[in-house]
């Protein structure tokens, strides 16, 4: 392929055809500010922050979309360029609520950053500003259209990555807004609550529903027995909120911080993840023996489950009836744990810390009260927990390591990797192999199901039978996989689907980032933790064994089924 030669700010650069000016500039270390641009998303060229001068062109070119050509002379730092960028930011701010000091994205706002970078010092326009009601209908995602700068990243990730399209741009000109079909509340549409839109929002137009006040209230309530569970992916990402490098594993500090916040018991969702493997594994074996319905699809990801209810209702019989680990934990906390510890379940306030915003909606589902109470009382995200830790003045980076409480804090390496795409499948295969074949695995790592490709597939031997498995991460990829299956192109026995790219480590409640490199570092942390665990297979978890022996009986048995399994509802899109 012929290379393209051009100069940017006087520096010659040689790139492949089809490269954009922005990419070429980056190659030689020239920073061009961007706003609507996102490396993971379709190019829009809409915000015009990244404009540059191209010799011979009357107008400024948006460098994020403009392809290079031979002999092109680009200038990224001219008076016209600086003025245009500055005016664009000034115009945005002129239509933006000026409540930066109390804004939840204060300090983490790309508009703020741009304003500082470009030296915007005054706003000369004082006209009409938008005044649109905030959409608080969803348990997961809150939309404040007044803060929206219409970069469209949320719309693109919802459509392109997640294949949901719960939001889009409506109206035109100055009345344009990002909204739902017919302006209904987000909760009334197909939004699955995954929160990917929050992760790409440059401002505070999209944010998770803040449940920290309810948690503080519970912690302040002397009569309440406040317990907390923490999902695996949280420990691989929370450190980023406190200036630690991506991929830092902070399990011990996390436990200590939760104790310092005042939780009576600090438990681990991973305990319930091991239970999930017991239930799901046995359910799978039963389906395998009783002719289906197969493939069986995992049900750990509430974003995926809701997606299936809206978009693939005919596939619902294929979804495992197992509750997610969060909900298994919730019901066991108010039954098994309450009984064992002789605590009135009514006095238990059960909090869960999740990398996920969809978990908030999941906990609020009508059917999630098999314990006789709401199984999980409050769900906060990794980001909300970080806020609580900051608010409490805890010096997180310098905390001593702590240990989870027993019994529901005991977990295995298998449950740790639930937080990364392919992890549930690998954990299930570790147990299935031993349960079915009856002999111990020499090598517990199933490398063939690991990785970050959107869709992966593998074959494993189970009781002399060839079992085909597939893994999808991100709902757009899930849709692709399901469409292929429905078209009859592929046949699988067991499928793992995670709603977010990379699995829970890339969840909508994680420290703000959609950078694939950071996701990989978080995943590596979980695989490291798995290696460090003494017990690495769910069915070997002693606390889980005891749970079945003394309380539940058989996996997939009557009591287990009553407490740990659920059902699904077909939902319309609009």
């Amino acid at each position, binding site marked *: 392929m012929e290379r393209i030669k051009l100069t940017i700010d006087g520096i010659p650069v040689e790139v492949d055809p089809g490269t954009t000016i922005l990419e070429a500039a980056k190659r030689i270390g020239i920073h061009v500010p961007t706003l609507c641009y996102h490396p993971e998303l379709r190019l829009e060229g809409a915000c015009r922050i990244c404009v540059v001068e191209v010799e011979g062109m009357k107008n400024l070119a948006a460098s994020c979309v403009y392809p290079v050509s031979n002999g092109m002379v680009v200038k990224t730092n001219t008076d016209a360029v600086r003025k245009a960028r500055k005016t664009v930011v000034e115009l945005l701010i002129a239509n933006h609520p000026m409540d930066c000091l109390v804004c939840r994205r204060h300090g983490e706002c790309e508009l703020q950053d741009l304003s500082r970078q470009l030296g915007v010092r005054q706003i000369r326009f004082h006209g009409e500003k938008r005044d649109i009601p905030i959409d608080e209908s969803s348990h997961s995602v809150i939309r404040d259209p007044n803060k929206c700068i219409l970069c469209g990243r949320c719309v693109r990730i919802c459509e392109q990555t997640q294949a949901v399209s719960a939001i889009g741009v409506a109206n*035109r000109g100055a009345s344009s807004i990002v909204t739902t079909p017919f302006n209904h509340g987000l909760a009334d549409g197909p939004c699955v609550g995954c929160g990917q839109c929050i992760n790409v929002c440059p401002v505070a137009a999209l944010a998770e529903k803040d449940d920290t006040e309810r948690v503080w209230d519970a912690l302040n309530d002397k009569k309440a027995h406040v317990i907390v569970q923490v999902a695996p992916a949280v420990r691989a990402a929370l450190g980023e909120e406190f200036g630690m490098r991506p991929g830092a594993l902070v399990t011990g500090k996390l436990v200590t911080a939760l104790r310092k916040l005042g939780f009576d018991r600090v438990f681990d969702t991973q305990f319930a993840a091991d239970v999930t493997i017991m239930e799901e594994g046995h359910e799978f074996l039963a389906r395998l023996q009783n002719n289906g319905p197969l493939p069986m699809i995992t049900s750990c990801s509430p974003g995926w489950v809701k997606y299936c209810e809206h978009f693939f209702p005919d596939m619902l019989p294929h979804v495992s009836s197992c509750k997610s680990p969060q909900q298994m934990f919730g019901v066991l906390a108010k039954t098994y744990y309450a009984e064992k510890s002789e605590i009135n379940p009514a006095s238990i306030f059960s909090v869960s810390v999740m990398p996920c915003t969809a978990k908030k909606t999941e906990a609020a589902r009508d059917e999630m009260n098999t314990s006789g109470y709401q199984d999980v009382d409050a769900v906060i995200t990794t980001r909300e927990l970080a806020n609580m830790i900051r608010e409490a003045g805890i010096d997180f980076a310098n905390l001593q390591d702590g240990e989870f409480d027993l019994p529901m804090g005991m977990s295995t390496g298998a449950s740790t990797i639930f937080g990364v795409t392919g992890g549930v499948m690998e954990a299930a295969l570790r147990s299935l192999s031993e349960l079915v074949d009856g002999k111990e695995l020499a090598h517990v790592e199933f490398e063939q199901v690991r990785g970050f490709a959107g869709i992966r597939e593998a074959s494993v031997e189970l009781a002399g039978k060839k079992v085909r498995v597939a893994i999808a991460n991100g709902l757009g990829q899930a849709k692709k996989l399901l469409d292929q299956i429905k078209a009859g192109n592929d046949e699988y026995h067991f499928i793992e689907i995670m709603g977010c790219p990379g699995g829970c480590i890339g969840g909508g409640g994680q420290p703000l980032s959609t950078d694939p490199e950071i996701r990989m570092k978080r995943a590596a942390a979980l695989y490291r933790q798995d290696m460090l665990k003494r017990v690495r297979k769910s069915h070997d978890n002693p606390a889980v064994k005891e749970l079945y022996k003394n309380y539940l009986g058989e996996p997939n048995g009557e009591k287990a089924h009553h407490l740990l399994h659920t059902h699904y509802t077909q939902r319309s899109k609009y």
Partner: protein
Amino acid sequence: MDLIRSHILVCAGTGCASSGCKKVSNAMLESMQKHGLDKEVKIIETGCFGFCMMGPIVMIYPEGAFYCQVTPEDAEELVTEHLLKGRIVERLLFKESGGQRPVALFNDIGFYQKQNRVALRNCGAIDAECIEEYIAHDGYQALAKAVTQMTPAEAIDELKKSGLRGRGGGGFPTGRKWEFAAATKDEVKYVVCNADEGDPGAFMDRSILEGDPHSIIEAMALAGYAIGARQGYVYVRAEYPIAVERLSIAIKAAREMGILGNNIFGSDFGFDLGIRLGAGAFVCGEETALISSIEGRRGTPRPRPPYPAVKGLWNKPTLINNVETFANIPQIILKGGEWFASMGTEKSKGTKVFALAGNINNTGLVEVPMGTTLREIVYDIGGGIPGGKAFKACQTGGPSGGCLPAEYLDTHVDYDSLLAVGSMMGSGGLIVMDENTCMVDVARFFLEFTQDESCGKCIPCREGTKRMLEILERITNGEGREGDIELLEELSETISRASLCGLGQTAPNPVLATLRFFRHEYEAHINEKRCPAGVCQALLSYSIIEDKCKGCTLCKKACPVDAISGDVRKPHVIDIEKCIKCGACVAKCPFKAISR
């Protein structure tokens, strides 16, 4: 065989339809039936004659009598006098302004004399719903010639020779556009006709679709042959129901007759057409937004490159021309590029259709050779300014164009001359303004339009035009501040240089154009809180000139808020506090005694 001795052509374009042509033709028919003439006289509903000011228009052949503003009540007289007795009804003929004698024949009317109708050649002359009448006017001969005697490259060459440039506004050489689309290799390509005419006051595309839909079908098929496309789409706004209906009828007729479809005129070439309706967004006239809209998505532009000729509709190479451009093409193929190039100026060949509007006697649609001066269009064809008022400016190129003052009346109207004086051809809107027009108010009006029609995708256009409009509203409301002009200029610069599409890039033009020639009016509004044209209400202050007032009390009676007091035969006074500046007193005063 019918023994038809007379044809009555009734204009059924949108203009005449809204002034009641249907009732006129019904009344004519009824009267003819009464007198037993309905078998020997035929009524034909045609497309637009262009002279909308004078509608409903009825033309009676063979005499070629041109009757204007005909009412249903006139029908009986026309039938008994003209059709039965052969006497021209002078009362209904057109009279030139200032002229004493009525003009009987349409070719003798000044409005038509200087025109040269190429794109509009069949508009008003044929029954738009009758494919045979189009064929009788050499319709589909160009297509037959091209597919049987010319290679695609030869057809494109003919177009290049003609020098035809895009009539939608950009003025890009049409032949080169076809060449690009032909050069892109792909099995599937598309031809699109942009009929999303959106400039306020412009309606030439609508008139062509209403009056001569087959010329567009023929031209699109020619384009398909030239670039290698087998499918075309006409993107037309849903607000043009008559155009849509006639085009649908025309496509159906062309299919039934075997002109559209496979093996056109026995060749290997096949072509078919579909209509896609737009919802009336101005921005959908921008080609990438138009493509997006046809694809069923939100009609917003996307950055170019890639250009539609490479990646257009459904990512396939797509040729997009506007209606007027297409309407010229069959004639070019039939008569040759040189014939077309013999009209117009060196760089702007052929003719251009203009929609005359505003303070002008003959509003309507006119087609003149490129290079005709503004003065000829405004005065010779347009009949000058009503009420003997002075010409102040004219806006060419629609909301994105520019305003030219009187000293530019001798500018030749062609792409380059207009650009040279800071205006543009645009799609051919021509709005004439008289001395009573406030140029700041004009800028505000057009900016209101562009900001309302901004798609909202890019920030400079979405947020910038809104702030510009606010500043203009402030100025016309008497709240202008020092620095407002500079702020407008700075915003204009950013919007025009940094916006995503042509709409945004030209959105500030109304302000830049008026600032260029009428900066003093802005300054008067801001510094002196005065509207020199007496238009901006907030800046008017009504008072009675004592010397002139005769105390007739008419103003006092006219005032709706009792702000005027005074005794009979004594000078009256206006209470400024109560005055709502409605102007009722000025209208009533017979002595011009009220100033504002």
